């Protein structure tokens, strides 16, 4: 089990962004982490994977544990070795490298299982298998997202952290990504899924957390969140009375697309 307890994160010594986050990702489950822009979702993932340093961030309180062992303050390479893989927000494909080189990079800590994992990723993503020597930057958005997820799988992670995998993708592709996440989870990997597309995330998650300005404001089994009136109104755009918040949600998405 991957767990965060009262985690507080400060950027540049002064900007308090996470104000005591607690969440749990049990083995083999999908956990959704939802919230609007700037809520602190990506920061939560950075705290887990040891990337705060890169952003001048600091974990100032609380702890992060993997099977009761603390992993906060470990360097990112150690965290990967312990079995936590991550696909960053915005795909972050190495555009000048080939598809296969991107995947080989993912196996940096797992040389011995390179062939097995490569076969597994190619089976999950036949579209990548067709073009191993293709320059990654010329892949379509959906294929790039697949490559980002595939790359994170190359270290055989026990837990996979996904940061907005549906970002900027057409509905059909979002469906595909969704099915792939389900399949990855079925093969035994625990998933912490950060999403703005709450409908998609909650439709496959076992449990969901909702974040607002650095705090968890709600935490329930995904089923119950889907039925919750407030959640429906603010995150799913399914308000029973009119669609003011729906417009807002859409606006968010559009804004994100420009940024990505």
């Amino acid at each position, binding site marked *: 089990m991957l767990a965060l307890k009262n985690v507080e994160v400060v950027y540049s010594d002064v900007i308090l962004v996470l104000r005591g986050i607690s969440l749990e990702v049990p083995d083999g489950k999908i956990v959704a982490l939802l919230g609007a822009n700037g809520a602190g979702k990506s920061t939560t993932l950075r705290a887990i*994977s*040891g*990337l705060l340093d*890169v952003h*001048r961030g600091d974990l100032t309180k609380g702890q992060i544990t993997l099977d009761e062992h603390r992993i906060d303050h470990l*360097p*990112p*390479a150690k965290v*990967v*070795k312990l079995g936590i*893989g*991550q696909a*960053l927000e915005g795909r*972050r494909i*190495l*555009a*000048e*490298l080939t598809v296969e*080189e991107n995947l*080989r*990079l*993912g196996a*940096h*800590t797992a*040389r011995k299982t390179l062939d097995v994992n490569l076969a597994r990723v190619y089976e999950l993503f036949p579209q990548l298998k067709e073009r191993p020597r293709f320059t990654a930057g010329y892949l379509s958005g959906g294929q790039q997202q697949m490559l980002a997820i595939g*790359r*994170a799988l*190359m*270290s055989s992670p026990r837990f996979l952290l996904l940061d907005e995998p549906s970002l900027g993708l057409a509905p059909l592709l979002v469906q595909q990504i969704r099915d792939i996440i389900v399949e990855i989870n079925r093969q035994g990997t625990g998933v912490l899924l950060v999403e703005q597309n709450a409908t998609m995330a909650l439709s496959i998650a076992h449990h969901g957390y909702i974040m607002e300005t650095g705090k968890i404001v709600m935490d329930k089994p995904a089923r119950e969140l889907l039925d919750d009136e407030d959640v429906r109104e603010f995150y799913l755009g399914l308000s029973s009375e009119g669609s003011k918040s729906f417009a807002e949600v859409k606006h968010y998405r559009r804004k994100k697309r420009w940024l990505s």
Partner: protein
Amino acid sequence: MTQFLQALVNGVSLASIYALIALGFVIIYKSMQVLNFAQPALLLLGGYWVLYFATVWGWAFPLAIVVGALFAAATGVIVERTTLRPMVGKPVFAVAILTIGLNTVISVIALDLMGVEIRQMGDPWGFGFVEFGGLNIAHRQIAAIVAVAVLVGLLLAFFKYSRLGLAMRATAFDQEVALTQGVSVSTVFALSWAIAAVLAMFGGVFLGSGVGFERSAAVTALKALPVVVVGGLDSIAGAIVGALLVAVSETLAATYQPEYAPFLGKGFSQLVPYVVMLLVLLFKPYGLFGTKEIERV
């Protein structure tokens, strides 16, 4: 015609030495965005290790090269660990100035070890040369060109096929992504300094072959900096093309300028690398192969 071809041959052999120094510069810049002005000093110290093993201890030259390379690599790693590591995240400009200081410190050490007189490298090439269609091509020139071709080939294969080479390319492209894939970026930094120091050592070896090694080697090494600007700070191909362009211009100027443009004065060819650099900068501010955004400091 013979005169022209001779200048060309001399240019290519000089280019191989510039390329060694420039490549080290580019590799360090790509992996950690540090402008390393200590390359000339690394060349002096590296060259010294080899001549020390070859002439003072009398080892076979290939052995002196291998052990010299190990010493050079260790020097690179130590310098990176002690001096550059604490500066991660500091302004590019400040770190660049720091490397100038490093250049002074390492040069002082190297020159102290070397002494004032010209030292023989202990190389097998000496002053031997082959005559070929009226051209005189020194053995050491051939050795330099062949060695650099082989080294560049090895380097490219390393980047293309090896796990660490791939990690280095990934780090150059997107450091955070490299971290998320389990790459130890500090290993990459150290490795890039080791590689740069070894390449500089070879530069010293070929500069000192035959004619002997002395402090002026550092001045020649300094002329590799315009090469980097010409080729582009972050381009390996640029380092090679830039080296050829600068070195050939320089040897052509050395051949023809005294005759056709004597008013430019003696030793004008020494300025040519900087003239080429200015000309390229007028039309290509990021160098011939440089990436635009990367250099915006």
